[in-house]
């Protein structure tokens, strides 16, 4: 790594001050699992690194008495994986946390880092998209909320301005008779990056699908929702045939590229397989 200065922020105001002073020359550091490899490989060479890891506000998980979920941006993947409340009510999110890297990486990697790094393959993006999370962003002009579906703008690009900071993710409780699931395909079982990731989130009402959310990773420049597939499910009783149809529509929503992790053809195929499987599990969870 080349040389840089570190600003250790004690609170959100410290961060904002540092960003106001050095924004374009500064990079935010939380878990470091995406930032440090980029610094080491020379892809980034900031003059300042602002360390967020001690900002208490960014480190909390709050179930808000069952009304919804707030996840601080510096909550680690491992914390999401192990949190009993998240596992019980937001299983797709806990599952995505459990899949990042290895345990040594999950103890460092944060949800905010996963989203702000904005890799198309970000594991936590699909479940958060499917849970209709909003990003709470702090900046010199105060806080603003952006639906996660508008957060990503391109490969490794987000709506965050250089002087802004992702504070937390907030999302409503899925409600009764809801279920979710996140699956990804990787050639190895651990220590890998999603070739394709799919999250499905279902809510049932009177035997029909009241709400369906399906989100895909690593099949487009940004993580995206498969809205046509969602609409095909909503208002109907979910059958094997309907799931198959939704999987087909999700496949059509994918716009994958071929790279070292998989071909576009294989990725499209996987979207169908994983959509079918996550919907099946989400349905079983919603019914139980």
């Amino acid at each position: 790594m080349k040389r840089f200065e570190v600003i250790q922020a004690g609170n959100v105001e410290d961060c904002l001050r540092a960003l106001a002073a050095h924004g374009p020359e500064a990079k935010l550091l939380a878990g470091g699992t995406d930032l440090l490899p980029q610094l080491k490989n020379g892809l980034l060479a900031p003059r300042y690194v602002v360390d967020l890891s001690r900002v208490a506000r960014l480190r909390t998980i709050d179930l808000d008495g069952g009304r919804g979920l707030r996840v601080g941006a510096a909550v680690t993947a491992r914390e999401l994986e192990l949190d009993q409340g998240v596992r019980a009510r937001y299983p797709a999110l806990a599952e995505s946390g459990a899949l990042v890297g290895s345990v040594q990486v999950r103890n460092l990697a944060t949800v905010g880092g996963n989203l702000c790094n904005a890799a198309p393959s970000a594991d936590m993006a699909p479940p958060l998209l499917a849970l209709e999370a909003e990003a709470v962003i702090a900046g010199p002009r105060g806080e603003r909320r952006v639906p996660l579906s508008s957060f990503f703008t391109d490969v490794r690009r987000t709506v965050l301005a250089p002087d802004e900071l992702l504070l937390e993710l907030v999302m409503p409780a899925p409600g009764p008779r809801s279920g979710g699931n996140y699956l990804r395909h990787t050639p190895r079982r651990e220590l890998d990056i999603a070739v394709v990731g799919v999250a499905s989130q279902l809510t049932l009402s009177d035997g029909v699908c009241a709400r369906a959310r399906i989100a895909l990773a690593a099949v487009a420049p940004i993580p995206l929702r498969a809205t046509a597939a969602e609409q095909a499910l909503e208002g109907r009783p979910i059958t094997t045939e309907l799931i198959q149809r939704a999987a087909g529509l999700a496949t059509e929503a994918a716009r994958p590229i071929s790279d070292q992790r998989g071909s576009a053809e294989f990725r499209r195929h996987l979207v169908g397989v994983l959509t079918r499987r996550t919907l099946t599990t989400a349905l079983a969870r919603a019914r139980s």
Partner: protein
Amino acid sequence: MAKQALSFTVNDEAVEVLVQPWDTLLDALRERLGLTGPKEGCGTGDCGACTTHVDGKPVASCLMLAIQARGRTVRTIEGLGRLGALHPLQEAFVRHGVPQCGFCIPGVLMAAAALLAENPRPTPEEIRYGIAGNLCRCTGYTTMITAISEAATAAAR
């Protein structure tokens, strides 16, 4: 860009050391404190050779800046056990002749120790996932799984 003082606890001792802002925790341990047990196999968190406990949790110390460890409690392989008073995991690794080239071994042991602290009686499958972040090119992992299982069983008795 001056060196900064870092105070933290390493292997049960309070330590103060000067580090560069860009030093990783692994750099500080190896280059500034002479604790060369943790190894750098990749520098990007993909091999586990640098696995170190921070506040009891296993982390890839190559991905953490040293000054992020201020005030924290760090344990390296040097603090897991020592010659003459080996940790049960180390005993089992020696008995089963696990180390070959030996480069991955400190990281594997730290991952295994963290696993057993959390889950004292893991199944072989749980052990396999518990050390899945640690690549080994010599052993094929089989003897590691046996040794970790045995150390867990012995500790539980």
